[in-house]
């Protein structure tokens, strides 16, 4: 995972983000949100750089990154697929959507397809329970999805 090496301009980006929160360790979560928004994920080197700027141990940053499910240390696919596994979606068959996606994409939950096109994740409740079962691709919400529609939905992403 240490293939990611920060360039000077990226270091500056992190420095600016931290500075915009006055380098306050109390703002660590907000800083990580912004940083992940910039880089797409939080690899080790990025975490190191954040720790350096805030003058706190890397372990503390790593502890926070791994604690919260919103932060990821792996890059996502070009189109990030998330299946809602909230209770409402679960009782309306969201697990069948996960099975179908796993089968078609030939990856497990939390993985990215070899071509980097799709990644598959589960999340807990987007709050669109009226449309259950729900899946998201990027920001687009697909409601009342039937496993048979999966092929068609995937094909619409080029």
């Amino acid at each position: 995972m240490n293939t990611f090496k920060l360039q000077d301009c990226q270091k500056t980006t992190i420095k600016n983000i931290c500075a915009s929160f006055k380098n306050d360790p109390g703002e660590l979560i907000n800083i990580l949100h912004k940083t992940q928004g910039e880089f797409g994920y939080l690899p080790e080197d990025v975490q190191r750089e954040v720790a350096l700027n805030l003058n706190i141990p890397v372990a503390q940053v790593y502890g926070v990154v791994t604690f919260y499910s919103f932060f990821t240390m792996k890059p996502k696919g070009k189109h990030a697929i998330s299946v809602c596994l909230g209770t409402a979606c679960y009782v309306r068959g969201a697990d069948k959507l996960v099975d179908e996606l796993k089968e078609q994409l030939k990856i497990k939950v939390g993985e990215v397809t070899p071509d980097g096109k799709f990644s598959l994740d589960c999340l807990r409740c987007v709050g669109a329970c009226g449309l259950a079962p729900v899946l998201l691709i990027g920001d687009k919400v697909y409601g009342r999805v039937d496993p048979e529609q999966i092929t068609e939905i995937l094909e619409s992403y080029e």
Partner: protein
Amino acid sequence: MSNYKMHILVCGGTGCRASQSHEIVEVFKAELKAHNLENDAQVVTTGCFGFCEKGPIVKIIPDNTFYTQVTPSDCTEIVLEHILKGRKVNRLLYEDPKTQSHVEDSKHMDFYKKQLRIALRNCGFIDPENIHEYIARDGYAALGKVLSEMTASSAIDEIKKSGLRGRGGGGFPTGLKWEIASKFKSDQKYVVCNADEGDPGAFMDRSILEGDPHSVIEAMAICGYCIGATKGLVYIRAEYPLAITRLKIAIEQARNFGLLGNDIMGSGFSFDIELRYGAGAFVCGEETALIHSMEGKRGEPTVKPPYPAEKGYLGKPTNVNNVETFASIPVIILKGSEWFASIGTERSKGTKVFALAGKINNVGLIEVPMGITLREIIYEIGGGIKDGKKFKAVQTGGPSGGCLTEKHLDTPIDYDNLTAAGSMMGSGGMIVMDEDDCMVSVAKFYLDFSVEESCGKCSPCRIGNKRLHEMLEKITSGKGTVEDLDYLQNLSKVIKDTALCGLGQTSPNPVLSTLEHFYEEYLIHVKERRCPAGRCKELRLYSINPDLCTGCTACTKACPVGAIEGEKRQPHIIHEEKCIRCGACYAKCKFTAINVQ
């Protein structure tokens, strides 16, 4: 300023937006412009109407016409017929499933008849991004009243007398909580709004923040005045981008109007609010964990006492309340505690918002007086079970709650009755299940959640829940024994007694409650190795219907373990002892000749 004769309210909640409601707004605006009606009718994007099942919703005021499942292409017709000529578009009206007639006025819909909207009073009525609309509905009048006419202690008294209890799950009396926080002396105190709605299948807090953010801001300021705090913080899930945007707009508007900031309304009282984002951790709904998370740390709970009222955020006295609790405050101040206390049951006052979901006809957000029965909620407001199936259970309280069954249908719903029935009020998720749902699998689903979300700090929750989950896995895959059921029960009780925080202590509830109410179903799983609901994949029995089988051999090729035999063009058979219940044959058969039991 125009005097509009009509208002077109379009739901801008997350559910309806997912079905293109923002496009509907744009088309309406364009159509009104094209027909020179811009000064007659106004398009308003509101918060959630609650009737998510039939979204996107469009409501026309003043006649309360309620259009369901509107698409952008319906807008022209609505403008031409309804707005221009005053004729309702019948095909888009809500159709009462019982009488099969169109309901013209939303007040007459079964879904709304039994509801009483206090916390949701403005949701689906005002534009949440416009402070004027909130003020027009008596917004910030409660804050004005408190600042000009009431002392902190008289305001706290009013809340105490109203009987309002915390709506986030615990049900602790809100007035008492404020009183305790007000008594600690400190140079700085904090008011925190817990908007970390982690319960899967619950979305009431999000809907309030999306539909009526000012009510929460106003209540936080009132709370600040009462306990002596000048700073407020909203801890909100990063997964709720729309709620965050609207809250930010609302805070900015309140500042510009002098309703937040220094010397509010010339009273000398100062209060301001900041946002803190969660990052996806269920345990952060627990107040001590939430406070650690706000400080930029891992959201792990700590032992109480000291309670946050004494030592909370940055070690200062902190009062934490949930979104829905706050949203009820301004109305109580304005209408008085007696009015509020007249609603509900003896020990649970007022109303509760529930997110009704699952196998029910009218999925949506409802607010009902405490003491209403489950039967009224499911069969009247909810319109009954989907596809005419049989009701089995309703799960309340999310991963910390339990199931209510047929025998609880007529129990009045309040904090104490739900606890006595082995469930809990929780934040208000209400998931309805029918005969096709396997209760063992449901318990496993919740345990799966608790295992994943356990912060790992205490061993009963970290290890105990994992063991519980393994047991359930064993049972649902047909390897369980009767002894396992006792083991499940014992371990659940140990976790309940020994876990550190509220979430750990309640995590075995789904297991205990399903064991209590559906013991038979567990027994069938372990004794007969059968899942009556047919949900547990590994307990399914596959057989071939000889009348439909053409002997095409597709299933024989699909079977990974060679459990299917038969001559070409002759009916095949499945050897049960070899079958691993993978379902590959079922998926491949083109003649629906494979039966699943």
